[in-house]
């Protein structure tokens, strides 16, 4: 007696990842074409350089968020963590006269600690990360106000070169973000750690019973997300040339939207950092394009919201079709 097995393509995993990227590229091309048709100023090097220099903060934070969503968690605190990390860097540079690099290190350390707390509390008390990071959202924001005395700390030229043109009009921050995207994709696909993340997001109990302890991995993922949010905070400061305690309010939503547009599943177990990067691009091209064609702020928000929903609906339909084929 032989089991009946449907002949199904074995390259589903690969084609699925390629399919997501291809779909995002098509969406990007369509958007560029549309905005170019609507505004004669859109299709210029200037526009693209501006977009590229705008995205690093969201891009690196979205890399961390991709990891968190892959293990079936969520991190709502990244916007506040960006602000508190930036505040730490600002104070280090202004009051203690630290140079930029150690101050950046401090910001990332602050983010790492916040993320590690998120992860440890989630794991130790088996709480939903939604609630724990919602608490951290408030805590970190409060800490940012405390550290800055609720005032924007002007840093100036000491930090702004991170966001200023460096090679071909692109900023150092853009290159750092690109490097992190590539590195994170390699970690996800080529390391034991990445394999364990995907396994935990798919079926945590099965991982535990296979002898893999999910707890340290989950804590590490939240810590990485915090660290990257800290770096994102510094990038944000470099654009503002200041540590603003109100920076990054609502950033978690833009970040989550970018990751989800990139095809990472909110249910865990499936995702790609490269796709996330394209998700970030989709949102920023949309924003830049709408601004160029003169859309008002309310219109921009309505259209952005609709694009997020449409992207996720399309992705879900594609997944469902794949499963039933």
């Amino acid at each position, binding site marked *: 007696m032989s*089991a009946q*097995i449907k002949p199904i393509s074995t390259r589903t995993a690969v084609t699925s990842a390629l399919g997501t990227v291809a779909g995002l590229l098509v969406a990007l091309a369509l958007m560029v074409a549309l905005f170019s048709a609507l505004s004669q100023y859109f299709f210029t090097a200037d526009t693209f350089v501006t977009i590229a220099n705008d995205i690093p903060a969201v891009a690196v934070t979205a890399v961390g968020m991709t990891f968190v969503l892959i293990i079936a968690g969520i991190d709502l605190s990244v916007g506040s963590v960006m602000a508190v990390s930036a505040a730490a860097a600002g104070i280090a540079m202004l009051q203690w006269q630290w140079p930029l690099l150690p101050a950046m290190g401090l910001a990332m350390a602050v983010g790492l600690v916040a993320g590690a707390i998120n992860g440890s509390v989630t794991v130790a008390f088996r709480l939903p990360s939604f609630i724990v990071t919602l608490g951290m959202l408030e805590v970190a924001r409060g800490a940012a106000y405390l550290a800055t005395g609720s005032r924007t700390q002007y840093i100036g030229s000491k930090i702004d070169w991170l966001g200023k043109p460096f090679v071909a009009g692109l900023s150092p921050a853009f290159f750092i973000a690109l490097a992190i995207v590539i590195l994170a994709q390699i970690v996800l696909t080529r*390391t*034991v750690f990445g394999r*364990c993340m995907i396994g935990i997001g798919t079926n945590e109990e*099965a991982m*535990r019973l296979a002898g893999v302890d999910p707890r340290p991995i989950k804590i590490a993922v939240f810590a990485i997300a915090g660290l990257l949010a800290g770096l994102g905070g510094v990038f944000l400061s470099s654009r503002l040339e200041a540590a603003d305690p109100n920076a990054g309010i609502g950033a978690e939503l833009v970040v989550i939207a970018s990751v989800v547009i990139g095809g990472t599943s909110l249910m865990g*177990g499936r995702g790609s950092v490269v796709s996330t990067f394209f998700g970030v691009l989709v949102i920023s091209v949309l924003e830049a394009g709408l601004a160029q064609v003169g859309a008002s702020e309310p219109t921009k928000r309505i259209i952005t919201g609709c694009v997020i929903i449409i992207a996720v609906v399309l992705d879900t339909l594609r997944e469902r079709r794949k499963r039933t084929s």
Partner: protein
Amino acid sequence: MTATVVLLRGEGLGKRYATPVLSGVGFELHGGEVLALTGENGAGKSTLSKIVAGLVDPSEGEMWLEGQPYRPRSRKEAERLGVRMVLQELSLVPTLSVAENLLLERLPNTAGFIRRDVLNQAAAKQMAMIGLEAIDPRLPVSALGVGHQQMVEIARSLVGECRLLILDEPTATLTSREIEHLFHQIALLKARGVGVVYISHRLDELQQIADRVMVLRDGKHVETRPMRGSTQDDIVRLMVGRDVHEALDRPRRPAGAVAMRVKGMSRGTVVRDVSLSLHNGEVLGLAGLVGSGRTELLRLIYGADRKDSGEVLLGNATTPARIATPVQAVKAGIGLVTEDRKSQGLLLPLSIRINTTLANLKAVAGGGWLKRDEERVEVERLRQLLRVRSDSSEQAVGQLSGGNQQKVVFARWLHRDCEVLLLDEPTRGVDIGARADIYAQMDRLAAAGKALLMVSSDLRELMSVCDRIGVMSAGRLVRIFERGEWSEHALLEAAFSAYLAADAANGAKAA
């Protein structure tokens, strides 16, 4: 018996999934009688009763309810016709009150606002009908003990018209006083002319409550006979079958040194003080009824659940191994093939490759980096060794048949190369071809000196595969049979033994 009206008649009922689980079963149920339905694990009791209750659609056969053709397409439809079933698992909403649960589908309301007074009155009446006046219908269900919850569940089945009531192992969680109460209620239902199907493997209960007993074996109807004049022995013989166990004789495997000793393993009332030793090169079986603590014992050994007491000693160690988590168990050289491979064993949407190397990623990695070529070669070797029918190592395991999924789980533990392998129902849902491959693999493992501890509900499988068979009953390991000492009858008797003893003790207390 007073009633002679045929309430429900079935003919040639059958159900097949991959293989037939029920075939050609006919029966008659009279109004006002209690028909006991019994048989071994997997004999088809639940399937048959679920067909009657509209939960399972039969593949073949017909039924008539009071002479009218009866083929319910859903539980709702069956209930509308007065056929109700109380399932083993409770289906109450624990946060709602007893009254709300009882009348969930027809809450008395005015324009959507619940009329609590009417609701509570109606519920109180309903509860009084089955003698539960003592329970306040306003209490949330979660505030009640499990036994009372079960009674509420039964009370809910009696809301509205009820002509036929199916009770599936209703006493599993009840105390002897509650059982007495339940039996009294069943007697009242009988007097009202309700037909009752009572599923249980507690034979003494059946003798107490049933008018007739119907025995199933391997999905087939064996015999239906009056309860009066049937001894428990008669029924066990019917369940097992008179056919002497076939040529299951094979030499006992040469047992090596002790691989693992389990001492005084306990968890609540589920596993009580179990000790055993397992040798290299042997397959030790664990038989017992569902709920006798077999799965739980394996999970305790593996560190998957917390134990109250007990220790595990590996090899000739004199100090117990530190096993509080599966991670430590795997490090100590123990593997577990879980009972439910879909929810606890496999990562279904991921590839055979990823699933195979999961328990031993270190072997295919260096410094945290996966060596993808080595992994591919190794998984391909295991895939062919175990004859996993699949397109390639990259195919998602969710797309494989049950047997081939189980082979992937085996491949994982082969890759890990553990000394002790715990197997929980390793051939459940596995077709015959793949089953033979799995037995052959177990043989190879034993021949290589590994120690295997295998839980199965299929006695014939245990008798053909194992060198020794331990029998668990009500949480205790009641006896270990050596090859040659056992028969189906003896094994089954041992499996029932603690339940009979417990009930005898309860009876003595009551007297």
